[in-house]
């Protein structure tokens, strides 16, 4: 589904001493089927932004359009249920939302609320646990007996079982160990491709933004600071430094190589092996010795 933010502002607790403008005149659009990373500091408005994607918040000013659903400042926004069925949100530490007696029941909770038939739910549940890499014999266990990593997978399965068209991920790997992080991210990447999802990933990891996204949105103080492809974004090192954001390690290293060794090296998505080959060649003098 296409997503459009049209001059959206959001104010928390308006007309009170605690008034806080979390989004300010934000406009951007996301094409259906793209994988977008939203980056920015804590407090830059990222989490307020994603709460507009399934109508948890409604804009104070402006208009949000997701597929053919429209969220407007003054509108009644009636079809929230349909919107929430189409947009699955995996919140930070999603295992905190588990509550049912068994894993199967918890996964079924979302689809049940949206009136999906039992047979269909069973089918989706099996698909979801397969996608998240949970063994099927866990289905009858209590989610609270599982390890932290497994609980996270159960929670994610619960969102996947809603069969969303848009998947919103709010730091889905926070608190996991590095191998767990990698597994979860490559799973989302695979689902994105296989199911033709539109994926919005909020992340602090520039490495993930570079590895998985095809479009990056940088937020700063509730405003759109910059957007573009990962290559475009991460080439603007200075602009990123200005908002105290890092650049992916590989790009940082390449720019240091250019400065320190005076070698003309560009990042164009090489793997480490390819980069090593190129670098070895240039260090040996193949290329532009001045």
């Amino acid at each position, binding site marked *: 589904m296409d997503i459009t933010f049209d001059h959206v502002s959001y104010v928390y607790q308006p007309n009170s001493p605690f008034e806080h403008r979390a989004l300010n005149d934000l406009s951007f659009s996301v094409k259906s089927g793209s994988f977008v990373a939203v980056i920015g*500091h*804590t407090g830059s408005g990222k989490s307020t932004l994603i709460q507009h994607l399934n109508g948890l918040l409604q804009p104070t000013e402006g208009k949000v359009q997701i597929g053919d659903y429209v969220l407007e400042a003054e509108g009644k926004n009636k079809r929230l249920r349909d919107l929430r069925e189409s947009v699955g949100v995996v919140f930070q530490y999603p295992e905190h939302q588990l509550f049912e007696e068994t894993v199967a029941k918890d996964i079924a909770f979302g689809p049940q609320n949206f009136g999906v038939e039992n047979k269909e739910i069973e089918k989706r549940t099996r698909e979801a646990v397969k996608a998240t890499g949970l063994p099927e014999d866990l289905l009858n266990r209590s989610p609270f007996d599982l*390890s*932290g*990593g497994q609980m996270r997978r159960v929670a994610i399965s619960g969102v996947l079982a809603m069969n969303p068209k848009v998947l919103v991920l709010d730091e889905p790997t*926070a*608190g996991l*160990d*590095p*191998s*767990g992080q990698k597994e979860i991210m490559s799973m989302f990447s695979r689902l994105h491709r296989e199911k033709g999802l539109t994926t919005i990933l909020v992340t*602090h990891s520039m490495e993930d933004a570079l590895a998985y996204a095809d479009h990056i949105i940088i937020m700063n103080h509730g405003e759109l600071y910059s957007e573009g492809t990962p290559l475009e974004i991460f080439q603007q090192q200075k602009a990123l430094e200005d908002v*105290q954001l*890092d650049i992916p*390690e*590989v790009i*940082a*290293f390449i720019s*240091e*190589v250019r400065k*320190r*060794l005076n*070698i003309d090296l560009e990042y164009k998505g090489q793997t*480490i*092996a390819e*980069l*090593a*080959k190129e*670098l*070895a*060649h240039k*260090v*040996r*003098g193949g290329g532009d010795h001045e």
Partner: protein
Amino acid sequence: MGERQVEFRNVSFRYQEDMPWVLKDVSFTIGPDEWVAIIGHNGSGKSTIAKLMNGLLFPQEGEILVDGIRVNQETVWDVRKQVGMVFQNPDNQFVGTTVRDDVAFGMENHGMPRELMVKRIEESLSAVGMQEYKIHEPHRLSGGQKQRVAIASILAVSPEFIILDEATAMLDPKGRKEIMQTIHGVQKERDLSLITITHDLHEVTQASRVIVMNQGEVWMQGTPREVFSRKEHVIEIGLDTPFISKLADHLKAEGVSLAREPLNHQELLEELWTLRSTM
């Protein structure tokens, strides 16, 4: 009083009789002014080590000596004065209603006189750069700030050892940087040993020694350079290695000879620079 060190002697631990061992015959020593990083998978026994050091758990076999004193029910309160601990979740270790109350909590427990507390609160909060936040309430602080307060509250008791048990895992990159800077500063200025339990490879490369845990056993230990130069052992148990270390490997495969295992960008760049100028 023995010398200043923590020693694990053939320590084995399990939570219950019928459960598998979490730690199996673990031995190591951590000396004064060391910074030891403990790495390993979730479930490798890293956090159990931290809890044993502080007397939150007691081993079934072997013994743990802090400054030569065996950790047991009788000595545990003295041990806790020497071994401070920062946990993972910033919210769940903040006891006080304000920053200064939280820093005071440990000192109150140890029965320190009030004047000393007031002095130490000032000192330890400025050591972590939080002196401006004395009367702030915890919900007005960021995760990184809360963890800095946690460090300050431990410094205030002036222990010999500080354990950071995945203290940066729940923080954003900015919070992580804050904590790492704080640790560096503290280590330089105070006479203490650091034990960091972590997944963060950047943290690991900065330590003076690394202990790699796997399935409850010490898999390998040495300086970060030693550990990452034998990286096939690290990869074997499914742990990641730093980007720069991977790149160095590929460079070697391309026939570039490096004098030593680089730990950071600077070191690799230096080597490449030398190579290039001698070509």
